[in-house]
């Protein structure tokens, strides 16, 4: 802003993750702009847009605290974060069930866990960080970023658990695959087999959910080989993330940090 307005720089910028900064001199910047009308026009458009946004934010100081909250939850370093509007969420857990049913019966999402602020809930689910902590120490190098930005674990996972302990947000679990597949009509009409996202396999991962006093995630079958599982943004499935598609009330939305301003302004 200051580059164009010739005013002293007024904005305080706090980095949400490791950031490289460069220093621009106002004169040099203006010289470049004077040479190219197109750049000038687009920069000035951006300038006006920023002004408008700043005014909006000044009118609603509480919007700033929402952003503050989101940054604290590590949403700032993410690229694509699942946010739930508590004013719309009917606790049907259809997002979890959809996640489980699109990922071999294992949900990579814990809707209820995670913090809330001003009716905005950040469930325990991968943020797809720009610089993923999980990637840093993976012996078989099984964690990758797909071209569309999603961070996923491939089949070469050896189940060492490094990523699980490296993730600051607790969104990676070690789990075995369940035996029985959910049979929609058998269950719907006759209650046959496990319901969507239900039954032992799911309980293995979230073993601590129903028995908080129990001893954590090792309630499963000790013999089976475990794999690290996490949200892969429904990579390779048409229509995008199943959790959002399966939300009947519009409470679940995937948001990238650029949209935080809009999100905060809307609330």
């Amino acid at each position, binding site marked *: 802003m200051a580059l164009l307005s010739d005013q002293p720089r007024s904005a305080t910028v706090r980095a949400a993750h490791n950031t490289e900064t460069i220093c621009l001199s106002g004169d040099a910047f203006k010289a470049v702009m004077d040479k190219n009308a197109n750049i000038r026009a687009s920069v000035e458009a951006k300038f006006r847009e920023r002004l408008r946004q700043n005014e909006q934010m000044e009118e609603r100081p509480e919007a700033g605290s929402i952003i503050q909250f989101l940054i604290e939850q590590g949403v700032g370093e993410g690229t694509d974060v699942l*946010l739930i509007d*508590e004013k719309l969420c*009917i606790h049907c857990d*259809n997002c979890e069930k959809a996640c489980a049913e699109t990922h071999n019966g294992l949900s990579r999402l814990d809707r209820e866990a995670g913090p*809330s602020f001003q009716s905005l809930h950040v469930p325990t689910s991968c943020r797809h960080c720009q610089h993923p902590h999980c990637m840093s120490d993976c012996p078989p190098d099984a964690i990758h970023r797909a071209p569309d930005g999603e961070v996923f674990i491939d089949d070469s996972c050896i189940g060492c658990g490094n990523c699980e302990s490296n993730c600051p947000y607790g969104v990676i679990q070690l789990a075995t695959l369940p035996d029985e597949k959910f049979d929609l*009509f058998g269950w719907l009409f006759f209650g046959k087999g496990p319901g969507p996202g239900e039954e032992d396999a799911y309980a293995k991962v979230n073993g601590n959910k129903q028995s908080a006093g129990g001893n954590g995630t090792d309630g499963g079958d000790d013999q089976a080989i475990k794999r690290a599982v996490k949200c892969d943004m429904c990579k390779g499935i048409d229509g995008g993330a*199943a959790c959002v598609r*399966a939300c009947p*009330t519009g409470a679940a939305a995937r948001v990238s940090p650029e949209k935080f301003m809009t999100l905060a302004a*809307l609330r």
Partner: protein
Amino acid sequence: MHESILVYRKHRYLKWTLALMGVATALYILHSPVEKPNGGTWLGYTLGVIAAGIMVWLTWFGVRKRSYSSASTRLEDWASAHVYLGLSLIVIATLHSGFQFGLNIHTVLYVLMMIVIISGMFGLYFYLRCPYLIAQNRRGMTTETILAQIADLDRELRSQSMALDDETAAAIADAVHKTRIGGGLWRQLAGSDPSCPTTRARKMVERGADEELQDTRRQILSRLTKKEDLLARLRRDIQLRSLLQIWLYIHVPFTLGSLAALVAHVVTVFYYW
């Protein structure tokens, strides 16, 4: 970004539904059959087929909701259309009937359908209202946290109560061991427990005037009060979440009931053509 099903996609499905209802109503007004308007005229058959189609489609929501691999549309599209098309049945089916009601299976179907629609209206109200109340009530805590907190308080209460007289100690033991949260259907819907042992224990501790143990009593009292607050919160949470589901216990069985009545309606109308 976060849009309620009522305003979803700028009221797209509301507009569709209003258009459908408008066309149906206009045709009904313009239509002047030989006999009284009923399900047997060309418009009656048309509206009947539309209404039956909508009913079957609305019922299919139960399947679609669980078809997680369906990528074509978001479930919210279905939910939004489900709400509006369901409400449109009030108009479509009534016009189909030509306002003829009587003691027969056709009116039984109409009544069943209206039960489903009205229970759906309750459900919609709960869906729009309860999430906010739940969030307010929980103050960011999950049920597990609340339960764990209550368990911690129980543990402390138990050890502190050792020093108290038998009667009070027994009351606190009851509070620790016999306090029930939730339970049967009515207990869940009530959202409170008038005979809660914790409340009894708190009242007893308040009444006690044991000079020596004043300090202990005060601590126990504050813990019991804390526990009571958590219990009220959790019971309210259970109540609100049960409201989110209880209407479905009317809505879904009566949907299937009206589907059976729909089959009977269609078959018998042609049985006695």
